[in-house]
């Protein structure tokens, strides 16, 4: 039940400002910790990513996420996509992309979402959808899984707006006099797609988002559902109507103001990320392999050569997996 859920309690915020504060905080914390790695201490921002660059990067990776989910074999239900988006956004509220590369977290989010939403996919089936080295991908996903769940504070149940939308459509069919509400569906679908690129899911309740999408679709079809809203929904509490209208307006603004990032800009940012990312967590780096080696062997006997670890992979390709085209 959403009203009693952890989502409402700890993962819904008042406004975008709060979210921005969290993100900036993470960014500054990382930069402070790794300031020593920068080539010149004064131009930290040239070396490290700024919060805005991070936002752009994450937006791009959200687009990759939805592409990945759309092309997934077997076909993925919408609720899994919704949950994966939630996890992705929540994770990067408390962490910076420099620490954990978005590509890896993306795959992990989708994997965990599949499990939570009971869309059972084995790890092998899952990595079949990823291009590139399958073994490496398996390792990455499995090792990040626990990290992701921990960063979500183990609150894994996500309430998506899809069921409220169905509920509203049923209600409209029963109580309002609108003709053929099924016309609204394609508009609703496209609205929902764009919603997930914004932060709406962390600022509003799923039912409000659902209502916003219904009203948006209605206006696209030149229909007016205001009578339905005022009479059917708010007949008992007219004073709350204002709050709802505000919320709906904000949601629609968010969707309208969203613009996908430019590819070129993102490419530049990615290059920058490669240099400044935390090498401890980069599966390609020597540092990571060293750490793993030390983790898995006793201090006394360090093997001469670790042919046993398939993570010690000598591919010339620097990226861990290729999810994007």
């Amino acid at each position, binding site marked *: *039940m*959403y*009203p*009693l859920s952890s989502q*409402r*309690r*700890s*993962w*819904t*915020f*008042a406004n975008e400002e*709060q979210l921005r504060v*969290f993100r900036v905080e993470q960014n500054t914390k990382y930069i402070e910790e790794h300031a020593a790695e920068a080539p010149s201490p004064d131009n930290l921002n040239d070396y490290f990513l700024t919060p805005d660059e991070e936002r752009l990067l994450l937006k791009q990776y959200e687009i990759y996420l939805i592409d990945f989910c759309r092309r997934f074999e077997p076909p993925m239900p919408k609720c899994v996509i919704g949950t994966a988006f939630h996890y992705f956004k*929540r994770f990067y*509220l*408390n962490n910076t992309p420099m620490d954990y590369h978005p590509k890896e977290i993306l795959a992990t989010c989708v994997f965990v979402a599949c499990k939570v939403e009971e869309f059972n996919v084995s790890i092998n089936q899952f990595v079949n959808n990823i291009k590139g080295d399958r073994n490496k991908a398996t390792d990455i996903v499995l090792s990040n899984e626990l990290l992701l769940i921990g960063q979500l*504070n183990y609150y894994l149940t996500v*309430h998506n707006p899809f*069921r*409220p*939308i*169905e*509920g*509203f*459509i*049923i*209600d409209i*069919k*029963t*109580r309002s006099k609108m003709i053929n509400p099924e016309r609204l569906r394609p508009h609703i679908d496209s609205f929902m797609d764009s919603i997930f690129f914004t932060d709406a899911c*962390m*600022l*509003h*309740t*799923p*039912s*409000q988002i*659902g*209502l916003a999408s219904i009203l948006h679709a209605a206006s696209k079809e030149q229909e007016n559902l205001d009578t339905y809203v005022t009479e*059917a*929904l*708010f*007949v*008992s*509490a007219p004073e*709350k109507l204002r*709050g*709802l209208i*505000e*919320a709906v307006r904000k949601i629609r603004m968010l969707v309208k103001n969203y613009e996908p990032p430019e590819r070129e800009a993102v490419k530049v940012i990615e290059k920058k990320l490669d240099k400044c990312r935390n090498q401890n967590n980069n599966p390609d780096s020597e540092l990571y392999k060293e750490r793993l080696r030390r983790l898995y062997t006793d201090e006394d006997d360090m093997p001469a050569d670790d042919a046993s670890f398939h993570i010690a992979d000598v591919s010339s390709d620097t990226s861990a997996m290729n999810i994007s085209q």
Partner: protein
Amino acid sequence: MEEQACPRCKTTKYRNPSLKLMVNVCGHTLCESCVDMLFLKGSGACPECMVPLRRNNFRVQLFEDPMVEKEVDIRRRILRDYNKREEDFATLEEYNDYLEEIEDIVYNLCNNIEIIETNKRIEAYKRDNREIIQRNKARVGRDEYALEELLELERVQEESRKKELDELETEHKKKKARDKQALIEELMYSGKDAAQIVSEFAEKAEKQREEEKQLPPPKAATEFSTGIKFGQSADPTLLPVPKSDEGPLFVYEPFIPYTEGPVPPQAIDVDTMGYIQHIRVETPQENAGGFTSTMACQRALEEALQCLYFTPTAGLGVGL
């Protein structure tokens, strides 16, 4: 039994069907009277095959065919020594070989084939497996003993119960006789009205019957006559079930759903107000699991209306 005739006094069998046929180790039958006569005369030999016999070798015949009797006898004798069990063998094959050997021996002895050879085999086996034979004999003995004890127990219980019932019967009869006697005396000697007296007695009889029912049932015997206790059906190592202190009783409080939004329709409304038409009917598999389309409809509506009025304030998010 009537068809068979004793080979010696042929006539006597038909005349006296209750006469039993005895059989001996060589398998030939003799009726009881012939056996007596044979041993009166002092000679101990079978009339047909002249094998020397002893009186106690004669047993009452159980089977019609004397050959069967002979075989049963031989088998019993052999199995007293060849008493290994399946657990004593490593593989099933070995056990089967052992069984086959027993059969061979019995067959040979029964049909008088290679008797000397076979007896030698038996002797050899007995010598080799002396300990195992002894152990198995002891084991069989123990089982039988336990069974016997149980039987004894049952028998004694049965007896004591019967005795009690008898006593009760006699007691009852005596009482009735006494009551009758008392009634007659009253009628004869007291001056009261006859009908009254009769009714008084009837009441008393009723009361007594009630009391009898209330008497506790007679205590079951718990001892042998020798003083050994029996009847311990319950395992004395188990403790009685501990009584747990019951805390405050559970009181049902109906669940009040908390929605910050308009009130969703109840289950009944879902059908009557026509919401149900807009949702697909559940498949038979779903219905078997207890799922109905009303539930799905209600859930969708509830989720649509939950928290519509809610305006979020600061969430906790970070690390909490």
